[in-house]
């Protein structure tokens, strides 16, 4: 027996009808009648215990369920603002999974939360080869970085983890996490996969460096005080030829469209960092750490470079998946599913063309491979093919991460 996967989408307004329809559609995709796990993404308006209970009821039994609410859902039909996506998995004995969650994430110190989540995931995990972990966190991205670091302390330093960080620093709405019948906040939850699961991960952003390199001359944690010996905001003042007061008015948009890029040795890529606030002294506060001494550049993207990043992420995920699948026959016969986690800020640049990225990913995997996903506020993922073997899981702003699993 191999992995069996079905996905269902419903845009019904009533959560009970939506749950039933999505599960029914997912079931129609499956050969197996046995369901071992459900992954659920829904719009915020449908977030409720009722939705989760109705999903369980429609499945016909209690199965581990994880998921989250999102500003918009990524579906094979495009981007949908209202609805529920259900992924049902029938898992063979050769693949092992466990799910776990932790609460009160904000109260966890340093890497404590990550360690706790990993311990819970490992508690029921048998002596099987661990493969990867998918985590959703209702956390700001700096907390998500600590979460990953903590998990890696337990799961291994070269262990691939994809974290969808679901709360923006200036996000106007709440995000909810789903675990079995519970709707959680200020939490993190995840699934740990082991055994003969094939997976592939690709994550790119598409922004390109511009201008001369600059050095972060003073910073602590996620606050950059000085760049090239001047207050940090001056870099933006110079590039945009405008005053601090003017910059403050539109800084959210400016920092999303023109983030700073940190050059990473050996990877030929830049990590993006959005500034989320301008401090009184002209320091810039970012979503994640920028170490003192980092070489940074202003970054710029076009729609085409974003589409190219989506294509590269999909191709890389597909290539990795095929490499990871056990044998030749499983490369063509087995079912697979593609999860896409995309930074909400990309929508700002792509606007009405945002759905084009979904089309590009579909083109890479083919029309028969189901695709589901959600908008996030940033992801933690390895940057490219081999990077997780080199202990470099990075926080991404504005990236598109593609995770393909099969087995």
């Amino acid at each position, binding site marked *: 027996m191999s992995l069996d996967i079905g996905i269902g989408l419903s845009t019904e307004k009533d959560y009970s009808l939506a749950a039933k329809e999505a599960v029914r559609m997912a079931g129609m995709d499956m050969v197996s009648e046995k369901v071992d796990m459900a992954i659920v993404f829904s719009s915020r308006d449908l977030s409720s215990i009722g939705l989760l209970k109705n999903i369980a009821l429609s499945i016909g039994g209690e199965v581990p369920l994880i998921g989250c609410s999102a500003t918009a859902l990524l579906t094979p039909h495009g981007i949908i*603002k*209202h609805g529920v996506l259900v992924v049902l998995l029938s898992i063979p004995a050769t693949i092992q999974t466990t799910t776990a969650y932790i609460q009160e994430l904000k109260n966890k110190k340093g890497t404590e939360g990550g360690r706790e989540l990993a311990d819970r995931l490992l508690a029921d995990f048998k002596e099987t080869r661990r493969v990867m972990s998918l985590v959703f966190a209702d956390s700001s991205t700096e907390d998500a970085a600590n979460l990953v670091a903590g998990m890696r302390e337990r799961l291994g330093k070269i262990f691939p983890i994809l974290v969808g960080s679901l709360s923006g620093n*200036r996000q*106007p709405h709440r995000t909810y996490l789903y675990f079995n019948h519970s709707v959680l906040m200020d939490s993190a939850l995840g699934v740990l996969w082991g055994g003969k699961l094939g997976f592939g991960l690709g994550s790119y952003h598409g922004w390109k460096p*511009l*201008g*001369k390199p600059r050095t972060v001359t003073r910073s602590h944690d996620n606050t950059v005080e000085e760049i090239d010996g001047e207050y940090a905001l001056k870099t933006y003042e*110079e*590039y*945009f*030829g405008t005053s601090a007061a003017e910059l403050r008015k539109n800084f*959210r948009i*400016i920092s999303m*469209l*023109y983030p700073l890029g940190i050059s990473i040795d050996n990877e030929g890529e830049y990590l993006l960092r959005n500034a989320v606030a301008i401090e009184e002294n002209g320091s810039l506060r970012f979503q994640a750490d920028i170490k003192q001494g980092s070489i940074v550049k*202003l970054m*710029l993207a076009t729609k085409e470079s974003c589409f190219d990043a989506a294509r590269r992420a999909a191709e890389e995920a597909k290539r990795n998946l095929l490499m990871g699948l056990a044998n030749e026959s499983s490369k063509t016969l087995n079912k697979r599913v593609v999860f896409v986690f995309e930074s909400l800020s990309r929508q700002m*640049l792509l*606007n*009405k063309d945002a759905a084009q990225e979904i089309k590009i990913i579909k083109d890479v995997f083919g029309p028969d491979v189901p695709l589901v996903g959600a908008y996030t506020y940033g992801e933690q993922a390895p940057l490219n093919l081999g990077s997780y073997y080199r202990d470099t899981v990075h926080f991404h702003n504005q990236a598109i991460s593609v995770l393909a699993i099969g087995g």
Partner: protein
Amino acid sequence: MSFLLVIIAVTAAAAMAAMLSIKMETVKRLQINVNRLKRSLDEMDEQAKLIVRTDMELNKVQQELDKRTASLATLQKLSRSISGVLEVRAIFKGIKASYLQELGFDKSCAYLWNEREGVFLEVLSIGYTEEETAAITQYINSKRHGYWEWVLREKPFSSISKQENKFLKAEEIESVFKTTSFILSPILPAEGSKGIFFAGTANPEVAITEGDEELITVLANQISQSLENARLFERAWTTQQSLEKNVEERTHELTVALDEVRKISKRKTDFISSVSHELRTPLTSVKGYASILLEEKLGKLPDAAKERLEKINHHSDELVHMVNDLLDIVRIESGKTVMKIEEQDLNGIIATVSDLIMIQCKNKNIKLETDVQKSLPPVMADRNQLERVFINLLGNAVKFTPEKGKISVKAKRSDGAVEVAIADSGIGMPPEALTHLFEEFYRVDNAVNQQVKGTGLGLSLVKHIVEAHKGKIWVESTVGRGSTFYFTLPLKQ
């Protein structure tokens, strides 16, 4: 030895000096290269600044364009949703939360001024709880005079409004309506209730632009137009309802009157029928006894008595004829006469009747012409009754046509029927006579009628016969120039 050492030292010093010079030169060159590189980097950075600024401008324009395009598409959907609606509440129901979200607003409400109560009434609430809606309604009505003044000024007001307004305070509105930015636009139908349309967002990251203000103004105008259409429709509908009611009342009155007429007509028919029957019996006796006396079966009669008896006989015949005509009319009217409707060749009937009437024509030297369209199809009629029609009409024509006059009989196909026209060059009739001509006992007041007696039932009988055949009869006439009687008969289907 010491000399040699000196030479070596000097040589070494010279070599060192040379090396130093070379190094100095290298450092200098490197410095030049570094400076060049630094300049290039600075130049590149300046170019980057230009690129960034241009890109930002382009992004801004693109975003505004994308937003406007999307907004216009949404506005079109909204317009479609409300423009075909002709009921006030339904118009506002057409403004869906999803459309407003597409336009970038998550809260909206609308109020219409109620003239009778002097307050604004809520007609739309999106994104608010019942309590919040009630609080906003209370706020608006507490400042209704200010809002009414603003509505009459016909200008929108928003968080980015340039114009000052002494009645409206942006911060107060943002607080009461629970938004971070908003647009208020007056609803101004040509007639009827004016009002307020509000759209806002609680998302601090959404910035309202002048384009948004224009968009909401267009939407408010569309609402105004729909309200105007609804008002006009309601007026038209009310008028139509009133008209329909009037027509219904009149129809009822007419039905009652018609029933009454039918009842009277039946009573008249019954009366005539009864009287006619009652008259015919004694008349038969009178005529019988007169005949016995005239045949002198009871003894020889003096000439004077004979002459009187002949008059009795003659008048009795006239009376019988009249009673028979009356009875025929009554029978046709009441449907008691069974028409033997068959295919009839009109040519044959006209020829037969013409032969009958020819003697009278010759006596008065009247020219009788017939003109029947070739290949005229057969008509559906009772032959005897149809002959009575021709005899009556031709008889009248002869009667009212002076000597050396002319009578014509024409028949042609016309609109699925056959139209017959009997024209004479007689004395004609005045227009006022034509409307009564087919009434029973009506006789035109002219010299001929004063001399020649008649019952006044002939044309009435003709009309009844034609109508019993589902035909029509009418007349055209000019005094001194003659008359033409037309009638139609249905063709065989």
